[in-house]
């Protein structure tokens, strides 16, 4: 055999498919990856450390910027932890608003994943279709919370704004109905496409043991056959009132993860549909709270199901307005740990596809 040389190649931080400022140093032999070393931290802002000097309310905008694609869920993860620590009772209307916002946000986040993922494997158009649909959600969010990306919508004890009284729920309803058609269009355009199937099937496989050993959550775990979804496993908010499924597949490859995320779009759609139908006609949107939020001393860990997996928040409180220590279990960061192992032996095209299928958000990885 002819002796060939290995070559070190920087993929990122300035690369179209690393979804932000992520860098992998790969050692390639031909196009085959022999070794991959991820380099993270380009977007590190020290959120956890900063939060120690901020009041609980002030941390909310920081959670927006961790997983910026699902800021609603980031907001909720924080306020949920504080509320659990304080033992607050949340008004029902606020809970419904939160669930509608979170599930719409999950749809928006998965749409970004869908679009960019297809862009990664070379299809240009699904990206724009996905963003066209997402734009409608962002519009709804702008009407609800006043922002398109960094919502800061949740407050400890409730939500900032009530439903806009100009028929916002009706617009959500209409979007949810229209979205069925959009999903069908996506499936016709992409899921049925033989090239997509050829690209995704059997690539980037890992088994259940590996997934559990690496602490993967979310779709990355569910693609190996573990039906673990925080919304079902440890129900929070009012998720126990809705009828939805946790899609699970057993292949553990890119195709399974693709189909699961597509199925989750449909499940989130169903949840919003039910939440809008059950929406209480009146009531408060904020619980009764002292002016200065001062949770009792103690510690709490709560987790929610973010689009990327289990988003956990740990708070150690000393009874002061600021947390003594706050830690976010960021699913993107945890899921990313498997990457070096997955990449070995793949070629460059597969590398991009595998990286995309883990669905990381660099704001969250680097926090």
């Amino acid at each position: 055999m002819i002796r060939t040389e290995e070559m070190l190649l920087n993929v990122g931080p300035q690369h179209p498919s690393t979804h932000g400022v992520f860098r992998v140093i790969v050692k390639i032999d031909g196009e085959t990856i022999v070794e991959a070393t991820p380099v993270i931290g380009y977007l590190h802002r020290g959120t956890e450390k900063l939060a120690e000097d901020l009041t609980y309310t002030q941390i909310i905008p920081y959670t927006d910027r961790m997983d910026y694609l699902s800021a609603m869920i980031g907001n909720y993860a924080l306020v949920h932890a504080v509320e659990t620590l304080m033992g607050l009772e949340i008004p029902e209307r606020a809970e419904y608003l939160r669930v509608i916002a979170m599930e719409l946000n999950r749809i928006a986040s998965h749409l970004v994943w869908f679009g960019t993922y297809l862009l990664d494997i070379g299809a240009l158009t699904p990206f724009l279709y996905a963003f066209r649909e997402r734009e409608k959600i962002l519009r709804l969010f702008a009407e609800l919370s006043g922002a398109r990306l960094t919502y800061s919508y949740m407050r400890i004890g409730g939500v900032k704004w009530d439903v806009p009284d100009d028929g916002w729920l009706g617009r959500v309803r209409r979007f949810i109905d229209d979205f069925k058609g959009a999903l069908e269009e996506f499936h016709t355009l992409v899921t049925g496409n033989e090239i997509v199937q050829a690209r995704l099937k059997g690539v980037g496989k890992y088994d259940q043991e590996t997934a559990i050993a690496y602490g993967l959550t979310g779709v990355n775990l569910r693609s190996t056959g573990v039906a673990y979804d925080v919304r079902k496993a440890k129900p929070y908010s009012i998720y126990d009132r809705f009828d939805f499924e946790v899609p699970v597949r057993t292949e553990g490859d890119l195709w399974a993860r693709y189909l699961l995320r597509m199925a989750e779009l449909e499940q989130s759609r169903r949840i919003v549909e039910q939440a809008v139908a059950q929406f209480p006609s009146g009531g408060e949107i904020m619980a009764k709270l002292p002016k200065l939020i001062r949770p009792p001393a103690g510690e709490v860990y709560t987790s929610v199901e973010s689009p990327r997996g289990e988003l956990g928040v740990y708070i150690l409180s000393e009874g002061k307005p600021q947390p003594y220590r706050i830690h976010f279990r960021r699913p993107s960061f945890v899921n990313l740990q498997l990457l070096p192992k997955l990449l070995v032996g793949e070629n460059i095209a597969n590398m991009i596809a595998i990286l995309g299928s883990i669905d990381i958000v660099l704001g969250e990885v680097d926090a």
Partner: protein
Amino acid sequence: MRDWLYEPLSAERFGWMVLSILILLGVLLFLVTYAIYVQRKLLGWMQSRVGPNRVGPYGLLQTIADVLKLLTKESFVPTHADRPLYLLAPIVAFAPAFVVFAVIPLTDRIAFTDIGIGLLFYIGVASLSTLGVIMGGWASNNKWSLIGAMRAAAMMISYEIPLVLAALGVVMLAGSINLVDIVEAQRGVWNVVPQFVGFVIFLIAALAELNRTPFDLTEAESELIAGYQVEYSGFRFAIFMLGEYVYLFAMGALIAILYFGGWLPPHPALDFIPGIVWLVVKTLFFAYLPFWLQATFPRVRIDQLMTFSWKVLMPLALVNIAFTSLVKTIAGGVS
């Protein structure tokens, strides 16, 4: 003009021919300019967008503005690049794409050359432009472009043969490699009907030769950033692009000639429309077809591409040849 070729050449006729070649170049440059515009418009429309609309009415001057921008853009050679090869590569990539027009007859009367081996000349010269891509990719001394260049070579060796074999079916039907004869042989029925399998193979192979989606592996924006073009800027980059688009039209014209009757109208009743119009219409259709595919398909992987070519297209093309020769032998009553 074609009959001039059969007589001794006078200086005057030579002048006219050179002039018409220059006109052809001008027309091609115009077509390329607007192909890019059409591409962007089509992609825009297919993606719920409006496409370019800022420069000039309906954005018609967009590409011209882009060319002017590229013309005045700084362009330099990377310090560690192989300078001569780096400078030569865009020329090598562009020149063959234009030279192949020499053998493409525009109608039965208008042709710049009339050589017996037109088709072979086309295939042989056109594949040279891959060489430019490989040269550019290698000379840049950039790892991305190197991978892009290697992919270009891989694609060339997988799709050249299906392309040639598919075209063989047409040659058998016409009994000639001369493109004029091939078109004339389609007076009755266009080749696309008896040679449908060959047409599909040819189309797929042509897309791969053109590096068009779903076979745009050498550029692979999301994987190799821009592949072999990474280090090219300014007008050197523009010439690469120009070559690519001129080749697109050359391939469009070739498909029109081989499978869709070239300048022949779909029905003899439509004979009053000049042949060149038919050829241009058909060429434009096949030149714009890749844009539609580009809007729809993702990219295949290099190993899938090669195995698809060798395991599907190759056997299919061989069967097609065998079948065609059998049918023609039986139908022709060869003793």
